[in-house]
Structures are given as C-alpha cells and as structure tokens.
C-alpha cells in the first residue's frame, strides 16, 4: 500500500541525512589532513578571542588561534580515537556477551562478576591505572578507554542472547546440526543488530565525551594538539566573553553523533 511506500521513503530520508552529515564530517577530516586555513597552533596576541568574521568564520580562541582550523584538525583526532575505542568495546564485548549469554553456567557467572566489578569501578581511576601502565598519549587513551567500554557492550549482547537462544529459529538450527559458533554468530547475532547499533551510537557518543573528559584531566590528547572534547572543555572558561568558542567544536560533535544515529535509526526499519 501507499503507506508502506511512504515509510520506505521516510527511512531513506533519515538515511540520506545521516549519510550527508557523516560524509561532511569525513570530508572535514580529510581536508584537515592536507589543508587548514591557518596553522592550527599559531598564536597571536592581537587576535585573541575575536568574534566570528569572514577571516575567521568561527572566531579565534584565547591564544588567538583560528578555531575553524583547530576544529578541522581536532575532528580527525576525535573521530579516529572514538571509533577505535568503540571498535575495541564492540568486538570484545560481543564476543564475551555471546559466549556468556549462550552457554551460561560458571563461565557466565565468572565473567559477569568481573563485568559487574568493572562497571562499578570508576572509569577515571581505571583510566589512570592504564595511563600508569602504558603512559600518557593520544593512542594509549584508545586502549585504556576501549577496555573500559567492553563491559557495557557485553552486558547488552548477553541479555539479547539470553532472549533469543530459546527461540524457534535457534532450535531449528540446532536440529539441523549447526555448530554453536554458527548459531551464535550467523543465526543469533544478526537479530541483535538493532540493539547493538543503538548501543554503538550511544557508545560512540560516550567515547567522544570520555575522550573530552580524559583530555580535560590531562590524560588524553596533549596540548597544544586539538581534539573536539578538549576544545569544548577549554571553551567553558570563556562562555561569557567568547561564547563562539564552544560553537564550532560543539556543532561538530552534534553532527557526528546525529549522523550516526540517523543512519542506525534508518537501518532499523530495513528489516
């Protein structure tokens, strides 16, 4: 019927907008690799806290650095760091969640206890520990936060697996002699996609924010290198006399997160 067509159409719009937003972000990252209007680290006393103008579309920061140029560089750093963090979290989280959810038993018990313990553990302290082990730096924070992200993914995947493992299609597959591995990753896993995708969007979001928090504590990207989160946390001190400082990095974060969620939301109706 017509309604069905309309729905299909609407899903496309979501998907298209989401893709456009993400493509835009990726474009910024790629351009930022080769070209920025100004050197993102060059300072100038005369150009401190200048409001947006033609020369500096997003103004300048408290060091007189061009905010647009810094956002272009910072987006790249943020995108790489947060996708890596989520990748680590999803890969290991899915593996652990699938195994514990499907098999249950003592392994489930042990891993879930570890999981609970880690979830209850303040991520700040955990990150401090990893930084203590691996040292400070852009890439060490990926590892540290990636590990911090595993428990929440494994918990979601586990509860999905528990829901699905007694369903008819699984029982059928067992009767047909499918291996456990096949059942877990070919039959059950695709069903968890909606939940997992939502979790990925949330995770991505949290990763951007976690990186910001860590940078703010001096554990992530080291100054003067920009990252979106770091810029935003620096901007908070200037909200009354340079409110535009927060605008560009804030917008960029919103674009990335919104883009991802529109795409995943669109995908959801595909089924």
């Amino acid at each position, binding site marked *: 019927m017509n309604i069905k067509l309309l729905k299909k159409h609407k899903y496309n719009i979501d998907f298209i907008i989401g893709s456009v937003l993400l493509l835009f972000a990726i474009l910024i990252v790629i351009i930022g690799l080769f070209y920025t209007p100004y050197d993102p*680290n*060059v*300072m100038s*006393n005369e150009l*401190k*806290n200048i409001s947006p103008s033609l020369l500096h579309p997003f103004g300048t920061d*408290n*060091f*007189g650095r061009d905010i647009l140029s810094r956002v272009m560089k910072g987006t790249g750093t943020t995108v790489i760091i947060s996708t890596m963090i989520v990748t680590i979290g999803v890969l290991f989280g899915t593996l652990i969640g699938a195994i514990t959810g499907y098999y249950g038993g003592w392994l489930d018990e042990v891993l879930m206890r570890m999981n609970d313990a880690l979830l209850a553990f303040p991520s700040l302290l955990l990150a*401090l520990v990893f930084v203590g082990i691996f040292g*400070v730096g852009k890439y060490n924070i990926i590892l540290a936060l990636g590990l911090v992200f595993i428990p929440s993914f494994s918990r979601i995947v586990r509860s999905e697996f528990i829901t699905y493992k007694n369903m008819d299609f699984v029982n059928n597959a067992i009767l047909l002699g499918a291996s456990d591995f096949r059942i877990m990753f070919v039959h059950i896993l695709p069903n968890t996609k909606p939940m997992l995708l939502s979790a990925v969007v949330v995770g991505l979001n949290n990763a951007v924010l976690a990186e910001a928090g860590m940078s703010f*504590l*001096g*554990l992530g990207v*080291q*100054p*003067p290198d920009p990252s979106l989160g770091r810029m935003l946390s620096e901007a*908070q*001190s*200037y909200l*009354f*006399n*340079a409110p535009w400082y927060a605008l560009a990095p804030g917008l960029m974060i919103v674009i990335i997160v919104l883009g991802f969620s529109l795409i995943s939301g669109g995908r959801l109706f595909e089924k």
Partner: protein
Amino acid sequence: MLKRKAIMILLILVLSITLYGCKGNMKSTKTVTIGITQDLDSLDPHKAVAAGTKEVLFNIYEGLYKLDKNGELVSAVAESYEVSSDDLVYIFNIRNGIKFHNGNNVTANDIEYSIKRSAGMLKPSDPMIAVISAFSVISDVEAIGDNTVKIVLNEPDTEILYYLSTCDIIPKDYAEISTKPIGTGPFKFVSYSPLESVVMEKYNDYYLENKQQIEKVIFKISSDTDSAFMELRSGVIDILPYLTDAQAEQIPEGYYVKEGSMNLIQGIFLNNEREPFNDIRVRQALSYAIDRQKIIDIVAGGKGEVLGTNMFPGFKNYYDETLVDVYDFNPDKAKELLKEAGYDNGISFTIKVPSNYQYHVDTAQIVVEQLKESGINADIQLIEWSAWLSEVYKERDYQATLSGLAAEVAPRKALERFNTEAGNNFMNYKNPEFDNLYKTANNTNDENERILYYKQMQAMLTKDAAAVYIQNPFQITAINDKLDGYTYYPIYVQDMSLIYFK
C-alpha cells in the same frame, strides 16, 4: 492515559520549583563569603602543607611574630625579644594578657610545646607533622616561668625569626586541634565541613582592637575556578582571589577588581643533569628562545611581571631586578648556542606540566610555539599534581617542567634549593661557588652585606640558566562593591581581618 499523568506530574514539579525558587537568598549582612578552590589539607597548623590551607588558617593562628603586608615582621604572640651577643640564645617575652580562643592564657609552656612539635622534637613525634626543616638549628626550647621562652640555637641563623613566624602557637597537649582548632588570631573557628566550607567568627578578645572587623567569614570551597566564578556571578561569593585574566574581563556588576603580585616564580625548570640540559649553552639557548613579555601578554593580557632570576619579587630589598635584561628574545643567538653545543639540528625534549594548573598549561602551549622559531621541538606532557611531586620533585625524573614556586616567609627559601646537597634541589643544580656564597651569606649578620651576597647568588643562577625564569603573575581578586580593605601580602595570605564594609 500515561501521557496525561506524566504531564500532570511534570506540571506539579515545575510549579513547586518556581514557587520555591522565589524564596530568595537570605544572608546575614555582617557575613563575608570568600571563594577558595582547594579543600584544606588539615586544620592542624603543624600538619597543613598546602599554600591554599595556610592562607586560610592565617586568620585563626599566629606565631611569635608574623609577617605584615610589607614583608616585615611584627610582634604577635610575643611582645618583644632579646638576643645574646653570640646570636645563639633568644629570649621571647609573651604579650601581656594574650588569650587563646577558649579563654585560657597563652603560657610559655604552650609556646615551648608548639615549637617543639613543629620542630619534631616531641617524643614520640607524630609522623604526620610537617617538620619545619629550618628548625634543625634549634637545640633547645625552654619555658622560663609563665611569660618568657628561651630558644637556643646550634649555630647563628639570621633568618630564624622569619621561620619562627611560620610556627603557629597552639594550646599544649590539645588533642582536638585538627577538628576544633584553637589559636590566638583575629578570627575563631566555628565549623568546617569537608568540600563545603570553613566558617569563622570575630574573636572579640583579640589584642588589636578593630571596630570595623567583620563578624563572620565563610571560606566557601568550590571544585574549580570556573564554578567558583559562577558562584561569584550569582552573588553567593563576595571575594574571589586568583582570577584568570579572562574572568577579570567578565566581572559582573556590583564587583570591582584589585590586582597585586602573586609572588610566584613561574619558570621552565630544567634538569641540569639530563641531556640536553646538562650543557649550560643549551640552557642559555632556551632562555634566549622565549619571549617573556609576549607570553605574559597572551596568557594574562599583560598582567604579570617579567622575572630574570629565582627570587620572590615581594622581598624588594633582596630581589635583583636588573637581571631581567640578561636574556633578550633572540632566536638567532639561541640557534648559535645550540650549534656550539653540538646540536646542529636543534633539540627535542618533553616538558612535564602539572595538569591542575590551567595557567601553567596555557603558558606551556605558548612556550612550545615560541621555541619552534629557534628550532627547538618541545612536547607537553600533563601530569597530575601528586605524580608531579613524586616524579619531578622527588625522583627528579624529567627533562624540563613548567611550574611555579610559591613565595615563602624568608628570602633565603628562594635560594636554598640550589645548594648541591639540598634535598629539594630538584633541578640538580651544582655550583660549588654558589654553595660557598650561600654559607657565607648565612653567617653574615649585617643585612646590607647579606643582600649583596643574595644578589650575587641570583646573578649566578641567571648566568648559569639553571632554569628559564618567566614571570611573576598578577593575583587578580574580585571584590564586592560593599567591601574594602583587601590587602596583598608578599606570601600567600587571605587576611580577612582587614576587610570592612564601606
């Protein structure tokens, strides 16, 4: 259904919020609230080490003498003193009728106890007490009668009075000092709630009569300068020290700004034993490679004073300001020096910066940018304060660090750490000539002569470029229009007894 219920609940909530919000702010007019951003590390004056704690406790406790706003010693618990001709025996006479906040007379026994306690001479001694290292020259403290105390030294020490002023007098064997502090200062302690506030009220029997003195002071503890500033804007805080330049520009109506010296030596401190800074030419090159005035302009809108050596500018007689011009900004000269030292392609190193001091972090970013001009490549590594203390300050595991050294009571303190054997010589500075001068200066009684020695030592530190001295920042304070009397000291002090309502 659900929707309607939810909207109802929401409505009720909003209504109650707005109704309650109209209640407004009730604050006694006699009270002054001052914002601080660091919680106290102890209420016991002999255990407190943080500058942020000492500047609060200054209002409760006093030593035998105390420092005034000009950096001069004025009598406090002691009324007067006499020195023996060999400079080894000091007799202090206690101020007539001086009482602790609990109403008891201050006796010689209390003073003996207090000095012995902070000198680590009590047995058994409490390991949490931050022993004043300069007290190692004290061989004996003895109460003579009720009103005089005799202090005997091992060797003459011309600055012992300064150090004695840091030893606050507390009642003997008073067990509750760290929860219910009792001192002799212009304010008495009312309450302390960790992470919230310290409350004090006027001590009516204080020996100096001050009709203008405010009745009640609240030191409000905020988590950082940003949230403290919000609280200033909302009118909860009346006085907020240590503003950034950007905040000073955003001061709300009803407040004014006062500027003074912070008496902090901000610099890039170099590990004189680590490559590449074990070569004096590299250290000098670094001094030529930074433009101090420009740093101050960018980081603080010009609100700072360029420094050329390691001395607190608050001690005006001792500070040698001519050393500011020894190194000008000269990237060519820097490159040349690096070449001479064998670093044809420039150098790379890491600057460790304590992450909790945004001011230092900002300065470091500018420094890194400036150094590029001279072919010097520096990376910033932020570390937590306690990690800075152990890694940089104690273990000396670093190449360079950008931080600040806070002013202390005695001018000697600024130079002490450059002695080869000094436990706090974290820059690993080694110069036998300096050591000798320091010893000579210490044994010199004549102040003018001593000042000359001090200036020679400062010149030495500048010439050897033990560190790259950057600036003494301004301490900017926002003050409520209703108040006046905020006073700057050469050390970290928030003297609330001088504040009064206009």
